[in-house]
């Protein structure tokens, strides 16, 4: 918050620290996309810039939303998103192919992206409604499992393993913070060990292969392991200071696949080295910490849970992407928010941040007495 007599009050009340951080990350992302295109604003950087600033404006505008409004739209938003997911599924059934997009004329909507903030808000709203004494009862658990499980399954069969995992993790985080008993989290972990091999059997061929490759990346260095191998080469060869702007050979010579989308971090690390990587991770950490602070300072249970869940969404995005790029997780197709080229990730993250800004504004403006 900037307090100055010159700057108008509404502007001064914006969380400038967050906006600077996010804009900084996005600008760095543009620089990387500029390099990934071989030193050109086209085709990625210019579009990405437009998308980012548009959603930044939307996020800032969202910050004037009242908590009560957010609460009110939580369930309808969830319902709408679920309907859209079903629509995508039906469309995919008709066209006999994988379908993630809903083509609405000028824009293509990916409903699974909306599901990330929607599931967080819905679960937060649900646990706000659950009476304190009921929290460890079965009836506090099964509706949440249903609310989370249905969209997760719908997204999984699209198939979009990455988004499914992020949605699940976001929901589970809210449930964890809501105070569900420990066994609820311990039991599935144990069950996972049993079920995982069975689930593996039901996976699509390419999903199976990605997991195989993760477990043993050297098994197929020119096939499915290629992504991880080339990504590690890019990051490792960057060293501490990197090869320099526009001098990354892995990305410029196309050895690094998806160097402007999912593997943009490798493109960055090759040119900016460990220093650039650590700075970027630090910037994301500050954004997430800001969101967690909003949660800690929240005065309502809904705000607490929603803020923590929304921050967790950003966290899972970043963490899963970076683990994947560095060979610590299977390749599941999660982009690095604000840096990877593509509108949907920017949209999701900016929606989350807009909601967080709104919740933060409440803490400052709404009198404790009311």
């Amino acid at each position, binding site marked *: 918050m900037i307090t100055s007599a010159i700057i108008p009050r509404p502007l001064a009340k914006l969380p400038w620290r967050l906006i600077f951080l996010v804009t900084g990350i996005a600008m760095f992302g543009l620089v990387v996309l500029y390099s990934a295109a071989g030193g050109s604003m086209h085709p990625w950087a210019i579009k990405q810039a437009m998308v980012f600033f548009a959603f930044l404006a939307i996020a800032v505008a969202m910050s004037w939303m009242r908590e009560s409004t957010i609460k009110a739209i939580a369930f309808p938003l969830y319902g709408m998103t679920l309907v859209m997911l079903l629509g995508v599924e039906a469309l995919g059934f008709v066209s006999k192919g994988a379908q993630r997009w809903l083509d609405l004329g000028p824009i293509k909507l990916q409903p699974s992206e909306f599901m990330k903030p929607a599931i967080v808000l819905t679960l937060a709203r649900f646990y706000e409604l659950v009476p304190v*004494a009921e929290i460890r009862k079965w009836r506090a658990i099964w509706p949440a499992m249903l609310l989370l499980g249905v969209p997760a399954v719908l997204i999984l069969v699209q198939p979009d393993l990455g988004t499914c995992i992020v949605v699940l993790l976001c929901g589970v985080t809210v449930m964890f*913070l809501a105070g569900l008993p420990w066994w609820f989290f311990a039991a599935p972990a144990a069950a996972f060990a049993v079920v995982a091999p069975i689930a593996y059997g039901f996976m699509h061929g390419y999903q199976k292969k990605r997991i195989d490759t993760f477990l043993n990346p050297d098994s197929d260095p020119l096939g499915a392991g290629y992504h991880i191998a080339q990504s590690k*080469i890019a990051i490792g060869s960057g060293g501490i200071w990197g090869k320099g702007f526009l001098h990354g*050979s892995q990305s410029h*010579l196309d050895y690094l696949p998806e160097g402007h989308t999912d593997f943009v971090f490798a493109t960055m690390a090759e040119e900016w080295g*460990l220093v650039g990587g650590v700075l970027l991770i630090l910037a994301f950490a500050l954004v997430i910490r800001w969101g*967690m602070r909003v949660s800690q300072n929240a005065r309502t249970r809904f705000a*607490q849970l929603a803020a923590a869940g929304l921050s967790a969404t950003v966290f899972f995005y970043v963490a899963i992407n970076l683990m994947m790029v560095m060979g*610590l997780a299977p390749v599941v197709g999660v982009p690095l928010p604000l840096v990877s080229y593509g509108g949907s990730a920017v949209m999701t993250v900016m929606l989350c941040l807009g909601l967080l800004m709104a919740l933060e504004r409440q803490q400052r403006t709404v009198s404790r007495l009311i």
Partner: protein
Amino acid sequence: MKHMRITTVHQSITFSRRMMLLGGAQAAVGGLLVGRMGWLAIAQNEKYQLLSESNRVQLIPVPPRRGWLIDRNGKPIAINKASFRVDLIPQQLVNGPQIISKLQQLLNLPPDEVERITRELSQSRGFQPVSVADNVPYEQYAAITVRMPELPGVAASQGFTRFYPAGSAVGQLVGYVGPASAAEYEKENKNPLLLIPGVKIGKEGLEKTLEPVLRGEPGGQRVEVTARGKLVKELDPKPDRSGGTVQLTIDADLHEYAARRIGDQSAAVVVMDVTNGDILAMPSMPSFNPNDFSDGISQNEWKMLSDNDHLPLVDKALESLYPSGSTIKPSMALALLNAGIDRKQIVNCSGAFQLGNHTFHCDKRHGPVDMDAAVVHSCDVYFYTMCLRVGAEKLSPMVRSMGFGEKFDLPFETQRYGTIPDPEWMMRKYHRKWQGYDTVNMSIGQGMVLINPLQLATMASRLATGKRVIPRLLKNKPVAPQTQLAVDEDHLAFIRKAMWGVVDHGTAATAKLPLSGIQMAGKTGTAQTHNLSASERGDYTSATWKLRDHSLFMAFVPFDNPRYACATIVEHGGFGAAVAAPLVRDTVTFLYDKPKAIAALQAFEQSIGGTLAEREARKEAAWRQANGLPPLPPKQA
């Protein structure tokens, strides 16, 4: 817990506790990521930098020029001849099938070649050339270069093919080169150089054993390429290093002379410099023509060579073993003198020798002979008698010290060393006691005795010098120190005198040098291969070639101050003095009087029907006709 009432306070405590847990987990993941990145970028930086560089930079190899083989005077034995080749650069190729059919027209490519080119093209990476044709005649090369603008992706260039000026005369010496086989490629850890079109490696002989020196270091155009094989930019080229030149001790002219003088016989000749062991000539004839091999040899050519009973695919100087026959006698005489036999002692030769119930023959009735006469006239009965008296134990060591059965360190993959038997060896190898007839057989170089022509020349060198002369073929190899042999100088002088007598008035009187002031000393040998009766042996025409005796001769010259030693073994040549001795005579003459020797050779070649190349061509044509094959088109000059 179930019975406890959960209040708002509980809930808020749970929330902040779990928030701390979540924050801690997030921080831990953040730490893990930074740690992982540090590990990749610092600890493993070197490894990944290497991998990144090997991704980025690719080498279009330029094969090194193969090193030359030159003779002792710098005359080339194996060189590289400029040749023209046509390649396709897949990346620059537009409308491949049309270009290939155009090339097929221009170069007269056979259909299976077109099929190979199409296959290799589909498997190639963008910047790696695909060979279309090797050794293209200049007219076709010119036809391609003129049409270059309408043939995008076609590269016509000058390359090199191996050329041996002396042709088949050096075949067994140098071996040949050819494209690497799959096994050779695997053996060299998939050296990419071996896959380049037109790269040949040594397959046989010196070309193979000297491969590390001759090959050189490939250079290449370093290029930056994308993952899809598209060339981005050219970097500094890596210069290639030509293979090293190897100088041999061979005198190319002498070698070729001896090879031609062998004529249609199946023989090997070895000429050595007795002062340092230098091998001056070592032809083995007939031989394959290594020039044909470096272009790739056809099934028919191969069949013709392997069918030939004169064994053109075997280096007879090193790989074939023969009984030494009487050439062993000077060394035997030395052993007898060493054992205390008086050289004046007379043995009466009746033409036959009785041992137990077996009769050993002499080639004629010599009457009373002493040691000198026994050597000069090659009397077998003398050696049977004296050697039995002394015993094999005292004979074998002397013969071995003269070079028979000895292994020499020469740059050839296969050498056979033969045997000089003794009682201990007999027990080890055949599990039987040494018998008197073994001594009798060994005394005239028959029985178990087996030698190769190089050992025969070495023996001549050692008899000439009394020193342990060791053959040498590579000029840059230091001359082995020649230690004194354990022989009495007086005995040696006697033996040399006797060997002079062999040529002057003995069995090899026909082999007197046509030179004034230079006299040769030598010893003939006739090695039995089959038990022929005396009458059959006298009349060679009645015995088929395969049954005839081998003809041997060894000599050194000049007899009073030895400088050169020469030996030959002519397979199934008949009586030693008749074929082997004149061959040595002419070869040695060449060392002193070239015009005289060449005149003799011309007369000789005329008598057998033309030069080596003419005779080879005629033989090939006859073979093709006999095997129902169409005649070959005349060879291009």
